């Protein structure tokens, strides 16, 4: 079904935070100002790899207006952080491993003074050998960046010992190496916020994160203070896309606040955000894929090298995900995948929308298209021959929830007019082409990883129905989704609801707002609370009104009595008044659904997507313009159609940027890219003006898991669809992203291209 207002009239809702956003009245955490507030600033390493011989802060401290300078000596607890292994120094003590490493931090009366003070801190470095390439890091002779060496993580999956042998026997074999860029999240709001100390020695942290409780845990470790003394307020957020899940400015603002006893505001400048912030893992992927005469995929050999940069953060999990998704939605009997995530002195790579899926999907789908060309077969037909069935095992041999999504999105995209309407191939200097790609994407953290969630429903003394989750709103539309699910599942009106998120003092732990898990976890939570809630409210209503419980139901504004004409018998407000000492509360704890098979990291719930793209290539400049983009998505029932649409459309343009423009360029482990003058984000003039999103909402009857999240899926298969269209337009295969117009131009000169050469056999 096409995702347009007409098809979802009752659920097409204005988001609850919308008004404050369009009027500019919403206070982001970086907008906050507190009385007596100081400004913080962090000194970052001058070298990508260096021993720190001495740090002298005397001159900075003497500057008028400077209130505190902190170095590693001021970290009371563990001077390390990291979501999986705490291996990143809060403030470097002996060695700096990348240009974003923090050496010292300053608090001053103004930002300008803080900036000046930073320049007065004298650091003596002894530069060390720099590793700016993961392949160099793997050499025997390479210096070791961490005590355990330069390998952060290895992951692999092998379904047969025979892979290379069976591939050798195949009549069709494609071997290619693909490379993907260091994409930046480029959230419009850079990392920042305010940390406010309280009288009892505790702190309140107002700073964006995707997981308030995890920040609290990490901060407690760093500050050597009990978690209960730390309150993290973490929404609203001006964009995240995975980039604010790891700690960023929080520890520095916290250390300075504790040292000065005053609120500290720390808001990264864009250049600092680029330098210190995490990025998408650049990956180099070699794939050798073989198919038989009939087009059945037989063997698939994959080697992945990921540049994880100086520290671990979520690097291991990203690699696991990439390995798992290297075979996509296809059935391939002989598979051998090996991945390695390697430390370098480059910028730190970590979590990013798509989580390693985007890179391998680009490579895999490109392989499929190359094979199809070799066989002179329609590329979608080749996909059809090899696509998984609903009941097939998952890519790591684990059981997954049965779903026809893969087949459905493929058949939906086949009827996209991008692929079916006649295409004018060429006029003047412009060449046109079209292509498609598909993907499947796991949700949640995967088997063996704690992935719990919690939810709480309560009647407040004001008579509001308060729903509390530990999730964050960074734009994805979580608040709207909660509101829609609440009115849908509890029958209440949106005016009855009070949503509480983003405050560790007020919400239950729900895990991170990541891995496309929030929508599903919210649905599960409300679904679990629905019955106990109804029970409690009706008991209460019955005891106040004397009407039998079985005649009552919960609805808008209050409790109603069934009858020829239903009538409201008590409002939530009245109910709250009568029960002011014993207000109904229901809580629940649950876990993201996982596969019963003990395959570490293996996913259980999946979403599926297909993308069709049309491009124009300017033969004079080599510039590529994506003129049309269509999507088919299977992710279970649509909860919040406007939010869903926005995730797919926005994800797609992020994918377009990944394909055509975006790369945080580093040389000798230093960023050339500092800001949006040298990092090109898609503008409104770069987008296709025609985009359609079609959805498949079906779930099998046995599927009790409800709607899946769509935060990532829209971004995953865009690159290979665009590069397939580029090939269709000009006959050139792209294997490195972002596509370089210069390289394309050179290739165009070398490859005179005639359209009739590429007509495919249907």
């Amino acid at each position, binding site marked *: 079904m096409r995702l347009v207002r007409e098809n979802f009239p009752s659920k097409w809702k204005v988001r609850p935070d919308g008004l404050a956003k369009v009027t500019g009245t919403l206070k982001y955490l970086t907008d906050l100002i507190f009385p007596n507030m100081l400004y913080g600033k962090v000194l970052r390493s001058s070298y990508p790899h260096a021993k720190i011989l001495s740090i002298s802060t005397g001159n900075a401290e003497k500057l008028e207006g400077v209130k505190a300078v902190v170095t590693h000596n001021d970290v009371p607890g563990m001077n390390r952080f990291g979501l999986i292994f705490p291996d990143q120094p809060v403030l470097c003590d002996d060695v700096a491993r990348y240009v974003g490493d923090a050496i010292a931090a300053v608090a001053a009366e103004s930002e300008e*003074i803080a900036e000046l003070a930073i320049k007065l801190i004298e650091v003596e470095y002894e530069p060390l050998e720099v590793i700016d390439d993961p392949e160099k890091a793997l050499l025997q002779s390479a210096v070791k960046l961490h005590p355990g060496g330069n390998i952060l993580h290895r992951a692999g999956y092998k379904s047969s010992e025979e892979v290379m042998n069976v591939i050798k026997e195949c009549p069709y074999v494609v071997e290619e190496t693909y490379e993907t860029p260091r994409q930046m999240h480029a959230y419009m709001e850079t990392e920042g916020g305010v940390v406010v100390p309280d009288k009892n020695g505790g702190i309140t942290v107002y700073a964006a994160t995707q997981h308030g409780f995890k920040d609290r845990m990490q901060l407690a470790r760093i500050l050597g203070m009990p978690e209960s003394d730390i309150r993290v307020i973490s929404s609203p957020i*001006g964009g995240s896309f995975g980039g604010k899940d790891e700690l960023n400015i929080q520890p520095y603002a916290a250390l300075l606040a504790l040292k000065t006893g005053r609120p500290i505001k720390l808001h990264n400048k864009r250049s600092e955000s680029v330098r210190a912030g995490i990025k998408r893992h650049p990956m180099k992927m070699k794939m050798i894929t073989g198919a038989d005469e009939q087009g059945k995929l037989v063997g698939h050999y994959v080697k992945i090298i990921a540049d994880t940069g100086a520290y671990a953060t979520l690097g291991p999990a990203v690699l696991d995900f990439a390995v798992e998704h290297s075979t996509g939605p296809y059935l391939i009997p002989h598979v051998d995948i090996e991945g390695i995530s390697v430390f370098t002195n480059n910028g730190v790579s970590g979590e990013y929308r798509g989580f390693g899926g985007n890179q391998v999907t680009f490579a895999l789908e490109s392989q499929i298209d190359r094979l199809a060309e070799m066989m002179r077969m329609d590329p979608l037909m080749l996909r059809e021959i090899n696509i998984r069935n609903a009941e097939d095992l998952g890519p790591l041999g684990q059981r997954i929830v049965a779903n026809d999504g893969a087949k459905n999105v493929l058949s939906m995209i086949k009827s996209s007019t991008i692929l079916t309407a006649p295409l004018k191939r060429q006029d003047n200097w412009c060449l046109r082409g079209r292509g498609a790609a598909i993907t499947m994407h796991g949700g949640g953290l995967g088997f063996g990883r704690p992935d719990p969630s919690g939810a709480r429903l309560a009647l407040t003394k004001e008579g509001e129905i308060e729903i509390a989750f530990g999730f964050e709103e960074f734009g994805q539309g979580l608040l709207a989704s909660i509101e829609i699910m609440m009115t849908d599942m509890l029958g209440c009106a949106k005016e009855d609801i009070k949503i509480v998120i983003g405050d560790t003092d007020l919400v239950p732990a729900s895990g991170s707002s990541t891995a496309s898990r929030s929508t599903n976890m919210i649905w599960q939570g409300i679904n679990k609370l629905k019955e106990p809630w109804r029970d409690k409210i009706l008991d209460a209503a019955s005891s106040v009104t004397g009407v039998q419980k079985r005649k009552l139901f919960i609805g808008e504004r209050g409790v109603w009595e069934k009858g020829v004409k239903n009538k409201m018998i008590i409002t939530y407000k009245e109910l709250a008044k009568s029960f002011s000492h014993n207000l109904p509360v229901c809580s629940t704890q649950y876990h993201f659904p996982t596969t019963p098979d003990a395959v570490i990291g293996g996913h259980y719930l999946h979403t599926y997507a297909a993308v069709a793209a049309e491009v124009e290539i300017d033969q004079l400049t080599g510039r590529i313009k994506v003129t049309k983009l269509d999507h088919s998505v299977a992710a279970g029932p649509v909860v919040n159609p406007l939010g869903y649409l926005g995730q797919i459309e926005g994800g797609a343009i992020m994918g377009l940027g990944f394909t055509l423009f975006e790369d945080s360029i580093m040389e000798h482990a230093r960023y050339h890219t500092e800001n949006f003058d040298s990092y090109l984000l898609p503008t409104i003039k770069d987008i296709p003006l025609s985009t359609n999103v079609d959805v498949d909402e079906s779930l099998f009857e046995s599927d009790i898991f409800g709607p899946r999240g769509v935060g990532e899926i829209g971004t995953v298969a865009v690159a290979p669809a665009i590069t397939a269209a580029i090939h269709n337009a000009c006959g050139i295969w792209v294997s490195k992203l972002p596509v370089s117009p210069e390289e394309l131009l050179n290739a165009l000169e070398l490859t005179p291209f005639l359209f009739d050469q590429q007509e495919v056999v249907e």
Partner: protein
Amino acid sequence: MNTEGLRNKSSAEEENNININIMVNGQSYSLAVHPAYRLVDILRNDLGLTGTKISCEIGRCGACSVVMDGNLVNACLVMAYQVDNQVIETIEQVAIETIHPIQQAFLEEGALQCGYCTPGMVIALKSLLDKNNHPTEEEVLDYLSGNLCRCTGYNGILRAVQRYKNESLSIHKFKL
């Protein structure tokens, strides 16, 4: 006349200050600020008008868009000495009694997600629509090409403009 700023100032900073008079959202202010201080800092730090956002601070993203003497400018590129005697309109001025129809269209069509680019987008569009109530698609694309949005992919923003145009057209027709 309001001379109170929210910002802490050090005496070192105060030495080179200049006096400026500035009209923001219909209110006049007289401020003593450093000449190289930026309009975006005046708005956000001194006047507490945080609807105007900062993101790139080099004129590339439009998050800090405001209208100065009728023209759309990036407030991160305008220096204090340039705003003396100027009239500034910020996002806070767009909705006074009711929201502007373009803001309504943003809500209806999902033209915003995180909302951080939204004030800049709205003020940019409003300044276009004030000049030309029925811009062509090309004009809209040109006008918004300096405003980056990382969340929406811009489709929702274009839908909102279309809705605005349709609705103002229908109001117009009705009046005739």
